[in-house]
């Protein structure tokens, strides 16, 4: 960080300290945040970066009505906030955001709304207002928006199922894919119903695995044995920890915010993109991703995939490893999407897109709770 380049312009503690049994832990974050905003003469709408530890930055942003495009949930104990300050300084200097809110709140004595390790079980908002209705993990939560999407965009159930069919085509070319046998629309629609309208073949795999990335400066990258893959643009956002509180279930605010940010930073048009990865825990995610990232107009993604634009030989090869639906999904699939983008940029993917120069890799966090977008290129800038 260049000395003197960053300043603290607001600071406050919670209104009360000591014994505060009338506030849940998350409200201590909110109370301190509101006081700090007042101190700085700002409103929540002026904040575009959120960092905290102990609670998720998603919870803090949603509660305060913030749409951030930079978040940091680094949680390494009591010094987490020093790290947040340092990360925020780097982010502001790099133009990732302008005004960062760092919060802390801890019901250490009264233990109100505080769980064993950050989570608070039945006392969280999701614990109170979603868990009692029989939600059973991602297949019943992540999937909940899709009927609204289908109705509002005029997309058919068959077009949803077709996402899995096309991705299996990509997987069939990938020796490391878990499922490689080609499937039909009838196979997908006729497989075991998990949570209507999602059948088993519209849901991702559950596998084991891992991945890792190493980054350095572009200057140093030339000294390495591998062809450099450069970062062209980046984006991120969070929306809500509760699926029921999405602003609009037919589109993801976090996807739109993150994608717009990444494209603006990269300074590219959609026509410049040769390859796309869209985190597909379930078959509807590529539909949301193609529309919310701007590759398709609203309600056009189903037909776009049907017309084979994302399939092998198409104009916008998408999820070329087979995706979470056919390649692998260990729980947090984003790392595997990044790996495939890197392979495509190095020219080493099993189903290589010839001459690909720009790859857009878009991930989702939680269940439409968060999004991250990384645009890569193999071209030196």
């Amino acid at each position, binding site marked *: 960080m260049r000395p003197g380049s960053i300043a603290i312009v607001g600071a406050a503690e919670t209104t009360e300290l000591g014994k505060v049994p009338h506030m849940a832990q998350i*409200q201590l974050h909110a109370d301190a945040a509101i006081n700090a905003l007042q101190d700085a003469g700002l409103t929540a709408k002026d904040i575009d970066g959120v960092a905290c530890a102990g609670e998720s930055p998603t919870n803090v942003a949603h509660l305060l009505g913030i749409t951030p495009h930079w978040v940091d949930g680094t949680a390494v104990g009591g010094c987490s906030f020093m790290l947040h300050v340092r990360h925020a300084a780097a982010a502001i200097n790099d133009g990732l955001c302008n005004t960062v809110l760092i919060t802390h709140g801890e019901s250490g004595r009264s233990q109100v709304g505080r769980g064993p390790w950050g989570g608070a079980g039945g006392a969280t908002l999701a614990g109170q207002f979603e868990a*009692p209705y*029989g939600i*059973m993990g991602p297949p019943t939560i992540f999937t*909940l928006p899709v009927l609204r999407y289908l*109705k509002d965009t005029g997309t058919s159930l068959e077009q949803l199922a077709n996402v899995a069919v096309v991705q299996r085509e990509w997987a069939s070319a990938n020796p490391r894919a878990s499922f490689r046998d080609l499937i039909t629309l009838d196979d997908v629609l006729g497989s075991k119903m998990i949570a209507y309208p999602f059948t088993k073949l519209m849901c991702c795999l559950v596998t084991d695995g891992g991945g890792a990335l190493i980054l350095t400066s572009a200057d140093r990258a030339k000294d390495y044995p591998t062809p450099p893959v450069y970062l062209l643009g980046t984006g991120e956002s969070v929306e809500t920890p*509760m699926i029921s509180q999405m602003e609009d279930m037919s589109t993801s605010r976090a996807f739109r915010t993150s994608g717009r940010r990444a494209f603006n930073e990269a300074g590219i048009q959609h026509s410049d993109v040769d390859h796309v990865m869209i985190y597909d825990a379930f078959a509807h995610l590529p539909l949301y991703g193609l529309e919310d990232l701007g590759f398709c107009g609203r309600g056009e993604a189903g037909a776009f995939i049907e017309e084979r634009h994302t399939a092998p030989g198409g104009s916008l090869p998408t999820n070329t490893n087979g995706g979470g639906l056919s390649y692998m999904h260990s729980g947090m699939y984003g790392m595997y999407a990044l790996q495939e983008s890197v392979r495509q940029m190095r020219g080493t993917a099993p189903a290589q897109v010839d001459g690909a120069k720009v790859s857009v890799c878009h991930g989702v966090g939680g269940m439409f709770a968060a999004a991250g977008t990384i645009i890569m290129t193999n071209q030196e800038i």
Partner: protein
Amino acid sequence: MQLADRSKLSRPIPTPETEHFWAGTRAGEIRLQRCDDCECIYFPPRPFCPQCLSKAISVFAASGKATLYSYVINERPHPAFDGPYAIAVVELEEGPRLMTNLVNVEQTPAALILDMPLEVVFEAITEEISLPYFQPQTRVESGS
């Protein structure tokens, strides 16, 4: 939706910020919050307005009328439920949406049509907690 064993339901634990909501459901009301400054009506509960951060907040009883916004029908067995059941999000007449279950209606795609009118009913799962469920609207609208 039929409950098989309500003791197997995940139990909400009210916090100081949400107590009024759960007191409301015990009394047969959905209590929402409205900002006295910008008139924003919001859910889930918090003691400040998510639009303008004002702490001047009023609690009021919603009409209990809603429409069906989206849902899934879970086919995997859950110990608290008898057979497949819909997990739904409804849009209250006042604007906010909330998750719920649907009762007194078949749990099938044919019976559950998006945007169908619904009304709230309450089910006590413990002495402290009554959950708001929704059923197809039965009340006859009073004409002008």
